[in-house]
């Protein structure tokens, strides 16, 4: 579904990514783990295109998309739920969801997508008329995920969706991600610091350190390697 090879990027003169390569298979949940500041968010943003790639290759559904602008990628079904709450605080929850279906392709499926989103997050239906900025942290996180689903994606990249949430909500987030894979058939690339919870929910794992991929394997591989767990995941 997605194949990234030897990606390099950074900010100004500072290089953050040092040629990491990953592959995400269709219909799977792949996670990218690693401690704070190693370049996980930069990786997702570079794949999405909000950070410009310096070199390397990004292939999505068999097509090279390395330098395509973000709105074209969203139209092709590849979207990102960025780290932090990048929702439209001055708009209502419903307006936020409608913005998710902004592109013509997504607009066609608006009612269908809305039904799906409300079945995953019934809370958002009740909160429809409320300003998104006035919601609780957990609810705001739901809005950003729901908004991404409204764009009728084939693949979603999630950047720390459980960040700052209470344990019960974290569990709900991971359940929802599982549902997105099983019921909707989405392909998911998940970035997390919460290694324990994501190892339990994932099909394949990459471990990033200082902008490089240091290890990869099934969750079992990673869990059974004391070396990886101690050196990179702090478990």
């Amino acid at each position: 579904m997605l194949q990234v090879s030897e990606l390099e990027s950074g900010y100004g003169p500072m290089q953050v990514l040092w040629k990491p390569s990953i592959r995400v298979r269709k219909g799977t949940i792949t996670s990218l783990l690693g401690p704070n500041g190693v370049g996980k968010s930069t990786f997702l943003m570079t794949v999405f295109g909000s950070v410009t790639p310096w070199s390397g290759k990004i292939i999505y559904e068999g097509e090279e998309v390395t330098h395509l602008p973000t709105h074209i990628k969203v139209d092709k079904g590849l979207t990102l739920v960025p780290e932090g709450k990048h929702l439209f605080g001055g708009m209502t929850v419903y307006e936020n969801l409608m913005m998710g279906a902004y592109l013509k392709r997504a607009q066609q499926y608006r009612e269908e997508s809305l039904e799906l989103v409300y079945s995953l997050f019934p809370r958002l239906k009740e909160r429809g008329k409320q300003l998104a900025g006035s919601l609780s942290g957990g609810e705001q996180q739901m809005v950003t995920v729901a908004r991404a689903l409204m764009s009728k994606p084939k693949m979603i990249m999630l950047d720390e969706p459980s960040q700052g949430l209470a344990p019960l909500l974290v569990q709900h987030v991971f359940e929802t991600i599982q549902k997105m894979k099983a019921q909707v058939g989405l392909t998911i690339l998940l970035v997390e610091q919460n290694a324990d919870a994501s190892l339990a929910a994932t099909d394949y794992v990459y471990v990033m350190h200082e902008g490089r991929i240091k290890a990869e394997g099934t969750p079992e591989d990673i869990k059974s390697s004391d070396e990886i767990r101690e050196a990179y995941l702090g478990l």
Partner: protein
Amino acid sequence: MLLEQLAGNLFQGLVLGAVYGMATMGLSLIFGVLRIVNVGHGAFIMVGAFVTLWLFTALGISPLVAVPVAFVVGLGLGFIFYYTAIKKLIKAPELASLLATFSIGILLEEVIKLIFGSEFRGYNWALPKIDLGVTVLPLSKLYACIGSIIIALILYLWFNKTRAGTAMRSVVEDTEGAKVCGVNVDRVYANSFAIGIGLTLASGVLLTMFIPVGINPYMGGSYTLKAFVIAVLGGLTSPYGAFFGGLVFGLIENGSYTLFALIPGVEPFALTRFLSFLMLLVILLIRPTGILKGK
């Protein structure tokens, strides 16, 4: 007697304030979407005023028709300046865009001076005055006020009912969020800058109806200052906030003029300008996000 005069002046303040508000919407739109302060704002107002003058004196075209013409000229100028200068500066440090818009302002002033000269020039749009009870108002000022309200309403509908307008609103709210929804942010930047400049030129047309001494290429500076005060009053990023900021500013300017005129030995006009500066400073100190829309 004094109260009557004050009521009359306040009414005139509201009429002028609506036009001031409209004349600030472009500044707020550009700041809200691109996070760029257009220091050349007043120069674009001046160009709008000269479009009016030229259409009227050379071709005999009514200032009311000049409003859409100036808007279209502004759109054109906006796109030209966006693609030649502004586009590259959006992600640069603020100083770069400040200097760029400042230079564009000077460029416009000098070009207009080359064409029209630097003396004050006026045009005579002979319209009757009407008696509204509280005050007597030239019909031209009433038209300017109504025109401003109509333009503000159109902008409101554009923002809330059209796809392109909603896209702009989403960029104002959160640029990253807009990107992941599939909004073409680069295009929104270009359109917003062009529309912002278009609105500003159109406001220059309406403002000529309030300038009895005539216009000249260097008239823009005081409007830049007023627009900053109004934009800050209205919360900087919201064009409607700016519109209401304009109403408040018009009231304060005209109300204070009446009161300053009572003080013997002072020149009230100079004091109102001092008051604008003072307001800007005080607001920025207490409530940098604006008075009307707090966040």
